[in-house]
């Protein structure tokens, strides 16, 4: 392949220096960083002079602008100078031309200033106008026609060349290290828009009428007419002859207005914190409890956990709603405490300014625990993979409960005997009966297998099902000074509705505690004493 001839050809078509290197298929980042030096190598002396003079024009003008000479020009009467604008590259629409970068730098700086990331590296991404696809393809067709051995896949993608040139300069400008997206948590995305794009893409309808007619017909499915895939599909089979047949496209059309940066988006990869919470209140739901938008309880575990984190990151209540997400291995009812080592949970922080330090995590724990309703002893950073373990744990873990129950009367006694003064008392035989009860074969690791219909309290939002759940162990004890009361230590499979097992829920859970005890019983209070899931595990 005659590189010099290709560069000459591209220059004549109207490509910028960097695009010339792209059409040569060069893929060495260093080449792009020093593109001026390399383009010199590939330029024939004759062309070189011509080009250099052009380049001088290109570089001199924006410098004037930057130095504020524009104002001076503005008040004088030299209209010809205005016409001498830099020629915008017909391939990248000016995206790779250094003269256009200052606006982009400013937008990135502005966004970074607002978001105040404390991150030393970044990755960058370009959202380029779709018209660049069309123009790349057109130039490739012309090149393949002029050079028989030119391969279509030679072209180095715009995005790559942009990273190697713009990205490197951006790093200098913002004082951060450019890294790959796989490594740096901070991603800066520049959105470039080309004002003439809609008119320019119209020609695709002529080149590939059936495709766009079909899309027009299925407007519901294809809400946007021109998308990257549709444009690529439309151009796939186009020949140079077809292209030349469309008006203005017998050669590559010049560009009147360059693509402009319309937004610079900065996003930091989410941060995940893992820990276990202990809930000491019987008047605290796990998540905000709202009925028709009205708050039923003052606070919630979630809100208590979020508060100090919001404080560290200066989050407004709206930010908290959007950017903090609470996940846990199951949940307990409002009036159930969660004791022991607590329940595993994680918090996802979207777009954090930085990761919290060990000291800060300790301080967050202290803040959470200070109110006395929720205690968190340790918080740590966890990976995304570990989150799935947390979620899986919701189905597989087993739990231990402590229940306070009351004996209501013998099986066939009058119902509704329900106060401490009735002569009903839990006997040693009652305790023994409960502790020996089983409805499974001896040797089964579960003593009791129960069938539970979806409890009425959640039936309005869950399907009606009958679930089989296993109770591994139940140990009953009498309560000193309270003859009618007894406690139960219950070890169950995840998903067992313990309260319903205790009171039987109108016979909707069978067998229930009544079957084990031989008397009707009710539950007065419940604590979760252990959630048997080893999470999060310190690294």
């Amino acid at each position: 392949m005659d590189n010099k001839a290709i560069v000459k050809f591209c220059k004549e078509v109207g490509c910028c220096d960097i695009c010339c290197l792209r059409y040569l298929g060069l893929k060495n980042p260093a080449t792009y960083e020093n593109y001026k030096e390399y383009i010199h190598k590939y330029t024939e002396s004759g062309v070189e002079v011509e080009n250099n003079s052009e380049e001088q024009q290109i570089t001199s003008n924006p410098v004037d602008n930057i130095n504020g000479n524009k104002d001076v020009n503005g008040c004088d009467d030299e209209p010809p100078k205005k016409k001498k604008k830099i020629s915008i590259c017909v391939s990248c629409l000016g995206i790779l031309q250094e003269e256009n970068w200052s606006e982009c730098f400013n937008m990135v700086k502005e966004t970074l200033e607002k978001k105040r990331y404390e991150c030393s590296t970044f990755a960058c991404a370009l959202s380029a106008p779709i018209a660049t696809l069309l123009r790349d393809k057109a130039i490739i067709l012309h090149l393949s026609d002029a050079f028989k051995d030119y391969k279509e896949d030679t072209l180095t993608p715009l995005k790559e060349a942009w990273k190697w040139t713009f990205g490197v300069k951006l790093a200098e400008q913002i004082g951060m290290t450019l890294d790959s997206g796989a490594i740096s948590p901070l991603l800066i995305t520049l959105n470039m828009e080309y004002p003439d794009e809609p008119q320019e893409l119209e020609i695709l309808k002529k080149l590939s009428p059936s495709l766009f007619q079909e899309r027009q017909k299925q407007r519901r499915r294809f809400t946007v007419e021109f998308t990257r895939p549709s444009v690529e599909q439309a151009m796939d089979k186009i020949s140079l002859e077809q292209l030349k047949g469309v008006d203005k496209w017998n050669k590559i059309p010049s560009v009147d207005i360059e693509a402009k940066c319309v937004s610079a988006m900065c996003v930091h990869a989410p941060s995940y914190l893992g820990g276990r919470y202990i809930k000491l209140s019987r008047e605290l739901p796990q998540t905000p409890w709202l009925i028709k938008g009205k708050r039923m309880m003052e606070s919630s575990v979630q809100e208590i956990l979020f508060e100090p984190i919001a404080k560290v990151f200066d989050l407004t209540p709206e930010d908290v709603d959007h950017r903090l997400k609470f996940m846990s291995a199951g949940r307990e009812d409002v009036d159930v405490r969660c004791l022991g080592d607590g329940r595993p949970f994680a918090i996802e922080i979207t777009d954090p300014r930085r990761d919290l330090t060990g000291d800060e995590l300790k301080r967050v724990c202290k803040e959470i625990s200070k109110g006395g309703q929720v205690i968190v002893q340790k918080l740590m950073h966890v990976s995304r993979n570990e989150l799935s373990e947390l979620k899986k744990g919701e189905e597989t873990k087993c739990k231990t409960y402590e229940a306070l129950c009351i004996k209501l009367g013998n099986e066939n006694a009058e119902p509704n005997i329900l106060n401490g003064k009735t002569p009903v008392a839990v006997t040693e035989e009652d305790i023994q009966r409960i502790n020996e009860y089983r409805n499974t074969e001896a040797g089964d690791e579960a003593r009791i297998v129960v069938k539970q219909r979806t409890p009425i309290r959640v039936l309005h939002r869950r399907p009606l099902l009958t679930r089989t759940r296993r109770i591994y162990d139940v140990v009953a004890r009498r309560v000193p000074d309270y003859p009618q009361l007894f406690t139960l230590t219950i070890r169950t499979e995840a998903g067992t509705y313990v309260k319903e097992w205790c009171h039987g829920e109108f016979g909707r859970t069978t067998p229930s505690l009544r079957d084990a005890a031989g008397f009707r019983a009710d539950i007065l209070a419940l604590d979760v004493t252990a959630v048997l899931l080893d999470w999060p595990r310190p690294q």
Partner: protein
Amino acid sequence: MKTMDFNILDSIPDLDNLKTFTERYFSKRYLINVDGIKNNDMMIMFHSNRIALLSLAPSHSFFSKDENYKINFNIGKIDRLNNSVKGKSKKGGQLLSPKSVICKIEFSDESVFEVPCCMKGTLVEVNEELVQNPLLLKNMPDSDGFIAIMLASIAISEATKSELLTHEEYIKCIDCSVNKQ
């Protein structure tokens, strides 16, 4: 603070003011003389989440009749025992209007009375246990002896709840009718 310090025994409530499971979660509403039939008195227990349980009110003539009985959920064209619901929205449940019959109570003296459901909605579940153990209805009408579980839209259940008699209003009505006699 150590969680060791916490024990279920620190949560013993005032045993003189305990509420039953029904009292904790349901509010009872009543209809009297349904369809103009004297003492055809019904009770609907609304859970705070609008699920409604149908049963007979304590003043229903059923409770004063000392006769063996059976509960028949086959009400002619439809067998309520075949009711099945799918998914969160309880699709496929039998549709109910206030006059729909949920079951028949058939006495050994061959007298029969029909139990109306008293509200518009979807039948979620009938208490199948009543077929085997009909005494539950007599002994525990407001717990294990409930007849059916129904679900209505928020609007309908709110409206029904406010139209029906509260417990206080019901007691007053019953006292009046007793005094008239």
